[in-house]
């Protein structure tokens, strides 16, 4: 089951690299969020308590519903649906993604997690998610795609967190989720303001300050 969920996360990352449609990016990130929520609940089922359950369910709702809803709402406001000219096209992104997956799998063999009986795909899956997020931020021009990249990167960090720690203090985990919530909120507000001021959200054209 662990392997299956991690493979799903990896496949969604590949899908994110291949798509240029912003709605599709957000939808698949939502699916990834739901999978990670299930992953969080499943990985701690042996130590399931009220606070662990709340964190798992909270992650599922925030990553799977709330963040995507914010981003979709922003997409409608700024009337942008497609990444028209990314720095790297879909096929190029996929090929780079494959190289990153190979590197992640190799690093996964070099970075074993001591004292745990977790899946051997956890570290590669995490590294690949972080890479995918970073690559989306670097290779896409639209600010919303970059916000999605940030979410995917955080999903990777979340996965290794819940996959290796059976228990973390409630306030730490809820604090991280709250940080994420605020980050996404600020990003959506910034994107909306950017669109209002410049009539676009293409970060490539933001190289000079406007008087």
């Amino acid at each position, binding site marked *: 089951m662990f392997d*299956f969920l991690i493979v799903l996360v*990896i*496949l969604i990352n590949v899908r994110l690299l291949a798509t240029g449609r912003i709605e599709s990016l957000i939808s698949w990130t939502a699916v990834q969020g739901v999978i990670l929520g299930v992953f969080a609940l499943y990985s701690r089922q042996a130590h399931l308590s009220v606070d662990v359950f709340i964190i798992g369910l909270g992650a599922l709702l925030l990553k799977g519903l709330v963040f995507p809803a914010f981003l979709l709402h922003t997409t409608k406001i700024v009337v942008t649906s497609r990444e028209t000219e990314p720095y790297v096209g879909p096929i190029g992104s996929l090929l780079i993604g494959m190289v990153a997956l190979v590197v992640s799998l190799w690093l996964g063999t070099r970075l074993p997690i001591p004292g745990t009986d977790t899946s051997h795909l956890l570290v590669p899956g995490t590294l690949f998610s972080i890479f995918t997020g970073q690559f989306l931020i670097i290779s896409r021009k639209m600010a919303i795609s970059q916000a999605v990249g940030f979410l995917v990167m955080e999903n990777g960090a979340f996965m290794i967190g819940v996959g290796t720690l059976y228990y973390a203090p409630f306030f730490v985990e809820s604090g991280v989720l709250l940080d994420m919530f605020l980050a996404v909120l600020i990003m959506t507000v910034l994107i909306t303001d950017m669109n209002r001021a410049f009539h676009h959200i293409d970060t490539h054209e933001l190289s000079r300050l406007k008087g």
Partner: protein
Amino acid sequence: MIRLLHPLLALLFAPLLQGIIMKTQAFFAGRQGPPVIQPYHDLARLFRKGAVFSETTTWVFRAGPAIGLTIGILCLIFLPLGNMPAMVSFHGDLIFLIYLLSLHRFFTVIAAMDTGSAFEGMGASREMSFSALAEPAFFFGLATIARLTGTLSLDQLIHGININLWQTHVGSLALVVVGLFLVFLAENSRIPVDDPSTHLELTMIHEVMVLDHSGVDFGFIEYAAALKLWILGSVIVGIAIPVRTGIPGIDISAMCLGLICLAVIIGIVGSIMARLRLLQVPQLLVGACIFSVIGFLIQ
């Protein structure tokens, strides 16, 4: 004797799979459709006809269909069906089979180009472009299974797939099956890659290459296409259905049922999906490659 069974089954029932696909599509379209044995009637009709050859063609054009059919029959010799062994098996026959299929494509393409028609040349160009993407996916898919079972012989490779292997490597095997299924659709000119029922559209791939063939030659091409459907289908079914009881009746029935289900799935996919734009086909095949490569990497 049992080693002869699979080639005989394939030679007899390969056109039936096409009939099942047509029947399924007719069912989804709300029509009664042709009978499932319609491909046999079509083949019989074509074999009764004489062939017409353009004056611009050479022996390459005439030899293409016969060589294609011969290669199709040759492939059956090396192909097991689940627990049913192949007629001939040797270390590395897996790679030999892939090359035989490539040879089949080569002769179809060269026969199409021999006509001198720009239209057929276009189809040939598309066929080779897409096969350049489909072949790595097929290679990686079989390489994954070869790595899991520790053999390069197709016979032992398919024989080595069982429920235990599926339980321990479900992720890899599922990805390989999906990747091979996409290749299967592309190689057999099925929707969403191509539509075998169209004959005069600019987006078609395989059908455009065989437009100038007629009569017996076209019958050979149709029969070879049915065999190719069976060949690739039996590889997928052999991987996807891990029934290896050792009782021939059950094993053979499971595989035949699997092939029928595969034909129904193709019919359903053809009914509920539109054909992809030509520019999107490479993306689908790259996707198939990625499924196979990830399956290979994560085991």
